[in-house]
């Protein structure tokens, strides 16, 4: 009876994995098929090669990667010291900081962009339309995800003891932050950075309504002209995000094993 029950469960389980998982994979496979179509049913990589030959696209890719990198750095500079400080010296501010970081989930990007227009009209004039100013608003968009990663990292190490130890040996606060705590948060910092980069690569709402030519804006425009190339770029961007996230999972997994031992010794 139980064996039959278990068998039924396992059949149900695999049916779900194949059907729902298959539905999730279908558009990805279709993108690969669609973007490699040649003449008369042959296969060709023309659409993929065309990515590198479109100057607008190349420029948008470089711009967006720069915005992504700066957003990740800016987010870390803003968030890591702040959250660490709430753990060390200002525990009362832990909840307010968390609340503000999660707020962008409740205020959709399409709403935020309406209110940010007056602020950006000043910024745009000051920077003569340099698209890198998008970094400021993108940092806000990544706050919920970055906060989650960094907060989880801080929770898993004993920040207070680390800081006290460093302080009692004569280290100042900047040194505690950068040379003692940050190295112990490597995994959390890395995953916060990766999720930020992935989000910025996919950002469309704000850059399109503020008239900046980021990757997604250009892909969208291109799609009206040559859907094969835009499907190829979309798939490329997605695969890039996949590699980043799988890479981080592998690195973080390996690191957790390394870090865990000394901490356990410390507790004992």
């Amino acid at each position, binding site marked *: 009876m139980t064996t039959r029950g278990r068998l039924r469960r396992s059949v149900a389980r695999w049916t779900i994995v194949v059907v729902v998982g298959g539905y999730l994979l279908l558009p990805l496979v279709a993108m690969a098929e669609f973007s490699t179509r040649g003449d008369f049913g042959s296969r060709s990589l023309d659409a993929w090669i065309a990515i590198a030959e479109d100057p607008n696209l190349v420029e948008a890719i470089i711009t967006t990667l720069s915005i992504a990198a700066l957003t990740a750095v800016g987010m870390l500079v803003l968030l890591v010291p702040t959250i660490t400080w709430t753990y060390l010296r200002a525990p009362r501010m832990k909840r307010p900081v968390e609340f503000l970081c999660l707020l962008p989930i409740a205020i959709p990007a399409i709403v935020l962009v309406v209110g940010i227009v007056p602020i950006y009209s000043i910024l745009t004039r000051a920077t003569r339309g340099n698209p890198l100013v998008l970094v400021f608003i993108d940092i806000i968009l990544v706050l919920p995800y970055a906060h989650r990663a960094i907060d989880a990292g801080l929770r898993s190490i004993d920040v207070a003891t680390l800081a006290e130890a460093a302080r009692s040996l004569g280290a100042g606060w900047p040194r505690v932050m950068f040379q003692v705590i940050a190295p112990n948060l490597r995994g959390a910092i890395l995953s916060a950075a990766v999720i930020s980069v992935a989000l910025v690569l996919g950002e469309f709402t704000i850059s399109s309504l503020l008239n900046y030519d980021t990757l997604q804006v250009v892909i969208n425009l291109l799609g009206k002209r040559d859907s094969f190339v835009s499907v190829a770029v979309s798939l490329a961007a997605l695969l890039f995000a996949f590699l980043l*996230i799988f890479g981080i999972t592998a690195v973080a997994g390996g690191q957790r094993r390394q870090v865990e031992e000394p901490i356990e010794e410390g507790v004992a």
Partner: protein
Amino acid sequence: MTASTPASEQPPGAGPAHGGAGSQRRRWTGTYLPLVPFFAYVSLFLLLPTFIVLVGAFQSADGSPSLENIGTVLSGPRFLQAFGRSVQLSLVSALAGAILGGLLAWAVSVGGPGGRLRQIAVAASGVLAQFGGVMLAFAFLATFGITGTVTILLKNSVGFDLAADSRWLYGMTGLTIVYTYFQIPLMVIVFLPALDGLRQEWWEASTSLGGSSWSYWRHVGGPILAPSFLGAVLLLFANAFSAYATAAALVSQGSPIVPLQIGEAMSGEVVLGQANVGKALALGMIIVVAVVMTLYALLQRRASRWLR
């Protein structure tokens, strides 16, 4: 642990009344000064824009206080219909995504937290949940569009033309299908922790007492998971309700849903004197999302009872 006590329990606001104010104030400043950059930044780029939206919704075009934007939104069937369609799209895609994603989460959770299938599912969901926007719209054009992979496959194999009424993908039907797609991975991420709360022992206890699979889900698993499931539906609802990019890239005609209406209002294709209507629409979105997220927080509190 002991070391953290003196550092974390300095009562920042407790001192000044008892004299020694100078050193107390210095300590207060020392405690909160490092947080100033964060609060300043968030105030400028998150709170100020929100404030501008809230105030602008109640201002006429010349800046004087008025209710005319709200009136325009509430009186024009165009805007109310857009809200109706937005709610419907979010609700249907949230329910469909929650059911499909919930099933998938259950299927990959059976192997336990260390399961290989689960690790792959979580990592893939992490990417796919962010795979909103323009790229997703093009993925579906490549799948079900006029020359999409599945469209051609069906035409050549069974002679069925998916694109006979070629506009379904670019309207509300298409939006619902595409939105459901990005809800599934999000559901997997938010629902897995709740499934982990189900103990194997409960299942064993139920079956050893002669309970069937159905009675287990009806009397044990179902009631425990219900608050988490409902909470997830709300989160998915807010997720769909806020989305703009997918719809902007996919919809070819008009602005059927609220985010597209706001986009249209911002692009300057509006009737003169209605410049702040976009802000009134944005205010409407904030209200809907705030209500949904508050309910979500309440349900989360209830659901967390079983998670420890």
